[in-house]
């Protein structure tokens, strides 16, 4: 009876192109147009500044609970940059940079995190799903979207985002398994930011990498330095091309770090050390990317400052615009809309009940 090694054909690679010191592996450098490089930089800076500002707004009580993305911008932008508008973005809830890249307005994000459904409005020309809060559950929707695209013989791709915590969920397993069995055009982007609220990666899995889980499903998996936008871009380019040409799904593990809290309701000092955060701050994706652009002659201090003042201006304008818009939002009766295609009669009655209650309160108010 034999007892021998089984060779698994799927390979799991690690990719790093621009290291944390900003040193470039010239041989691996992806060919990215100047235009895309500068757009990625502007979006990264905008997302970073917006994130910081949102945190301030939350602390001032001007928005509700908010999940900061700081540190994860490269993982989001290097992947999403490959999607066409007709492709499907299926996000979790910490993909603000990717959403901004897709064209989601800063106003809508502020409005959403102020508790208004209007902030979810997605224009008809963009195939973006709304954010998904139950961890990992959105992965399956990408599989269905990819399945449908393949059925319709379209070359649309679905890209879904999730974190390291999601890889413990059944939906992750089921989603990757279905995707591989049906060979659907889906790119699975895992942002391994090392923390699922207070649970470190070491308590999430005994696997050496998350990328290797792809091998179990029979799909390619690659682990990349998620704070290096060039690595992320190169890996996603391959994965999207594979999906679009009928080559099936790919799992990309972007090794990154959540520099801030899980959400503004969380205090990370309870479970991780300042030193760890400090170490990861040195691997900031923005600093590294700017150094690369400077060395390529695409960015100067002057130009960077100009971009920064432009994005700060855009953020301020968005805050002002959102706060203006919110003065007229919030009619409670609107919450009955979009429950079903047609509103059932009992629901209409509930709506009418609330309307009369509201006008009664209004009357009482007037009568003092």
């Amino acid at each position, binding site marked *: 009876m034999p007892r021998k090694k089984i060779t698994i054909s799927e390979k799991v690679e690690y990719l790093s192109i621009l290291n944390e010191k900003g040193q470039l592996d010239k041989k691996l450098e992806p060919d990215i147009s100047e235009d895309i490089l500068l757009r990625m930089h502007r979006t990264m800076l905008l997302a970073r500044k917006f994130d910081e500002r949102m945190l301030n707004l939350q602390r001032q009580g001007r928005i509700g609970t908010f999940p900061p993305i700081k540190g994860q911008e490269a993982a989001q932008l290097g992947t999403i940059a490959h999607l066409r508008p007709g492709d*499907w973005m*299926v996000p979790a809830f910490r993909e603000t940079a990717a959403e901004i890249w897709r064209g989601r307005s800063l106003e809508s994000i502020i409005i959403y995190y102020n508790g208004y*459904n*209007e902030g*979810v*409005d*997605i224009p*008809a020309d963009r195939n973006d*799903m*709304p954010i*998904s*809060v*139950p961890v990992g*559950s*959105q*992965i*399956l*929707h*990408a*599989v*269905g*979207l*990819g*399945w*449908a*695209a393949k*059925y*319709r013989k379209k070359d649309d791709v*679905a890209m879904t985002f999730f974190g390291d915590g999601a890889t413990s969920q*059944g*939906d992750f397993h*089921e*989603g990757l*398994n*279905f995707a591989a*069995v*049906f060979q659907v055009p889906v790119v699975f982007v895992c942002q391994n930011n090392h923390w699922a609220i207070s649970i470190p990666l070491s308590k999430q899995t005994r696997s050496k990498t998350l990328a290797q889980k792809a091998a179990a499903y029979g799909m390619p998996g690659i682990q990349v330095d998620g704070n290096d936008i060039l690595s992320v871009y190169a890996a996603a380019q391959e994965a999207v091309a594979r999906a679009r040409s009928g080559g099936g799904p790919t799992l990309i593990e972007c090794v990154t770090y959540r520099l801030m809290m899980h959400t503004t309701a969380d205090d990370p000092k309870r479970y991780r050390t300042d030193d760890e955060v400090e170490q990861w701050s040195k691997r900031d994706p923005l600093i590294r990317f700017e150094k690369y652009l400077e060395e390529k002659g695409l960015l100067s201090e002057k130009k960077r400052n100009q971009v920064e003042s432009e994005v700060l201006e855009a953020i301020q304008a968005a805050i002002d615009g959102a706060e203006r818009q919110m003065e007229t939002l919030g009619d409670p009766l609107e919450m009955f*809309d*979009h*429950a*079903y*295609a047609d509103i*059932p*009669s*009992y*629901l209409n009655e509930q709506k009418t009940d609330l309307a009369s209650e509201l006008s009664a309160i209004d009357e009482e108010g007037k009568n003092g």
Partner: protein
Amino acid sequence: MAKMTMVQALNLALQQEMEKDDSVIVLGEDVGVDGGVFRVTDGLIDQFGERRVVDTPLAESAIVGMSIGMAVYGLKPVCEIQFSGFSYQGFHQLENHAARLRWRSRGRFHVPMVLRTPYGGGVRALEHHSESREAYWAHTPGLKMVIPSGPRNARALLISAIRDPDPVIFYESKALYRAFREEVPEAEETLPIGEPQIIEEGEDLTLISYGATMRSTLEAAAELKEKDSVAAEVIDLLTISPLAETILVESAKKTGRVVVVHEAPRSFGTGAEVVSRLMEKAFYYLEVPIERVTGFDIVIPLFSREKAYLPGTGRILRAARKVLAAR
């Protein structure tokens, strides 16, 4: 017209709707080559191929979650969960996504999917194969919950469910699958979702039921007519949610005496909602308190005891006579 079992009638609905609309996709465990464990999807793979009749890996959450993605893309997935007892692994996809995507996206996306699943007792099945949990789905805003009671309305309602722009949970009674045959017209026939039907008109008493217990309810009505000279009005809900109450309220106003029958547990069940609606809209017309004849608030027992658990004609008759006797 041909006489068909409910299995055959459901198969006809799927076959005709798939023929008509290439966005209709059937998926689930064993629905393809095997034709479904109850044979509801029998033969579909031969006519429509593996592209449209998809044998999936064994994972209910993925079957539901993938259907959501397919529906958002513009397809009309009809997924089968082999037994309703296994649908709970897909529960969170229905609750968190299917039911609320229209609302969350303010109408940008909607989920025109159907989840078909066999429910209920009465076929001497294994554990986890006999529950009746329609209240779970009916309690989730954004879902529709439909339960046919015979071959003809099953076929008509399934077509409507497939065409419905919102997600529909479609419960098929295992006890009714092959219990009797009915004339089912070859030509397309639909029934509106959200409309109960008066099956028998009467003035003395209203009997309200749906699904598998419609049979025992109708038997009870026949016996009341024969032995007690009582004309019972029998109403088949057909749609549990959205529950349309007008027909129920009008009937209660007419008869003043109501019995609600279902095999699901009593507390927080469909009967409770029906009673509440009648209390709100027909209270002053009621002669006596409304009776509920239901399953008990326990796990449905293994099949040696299921006859005692399920509401049979005897229990319905006792409740009806109690309501009729009260002044």
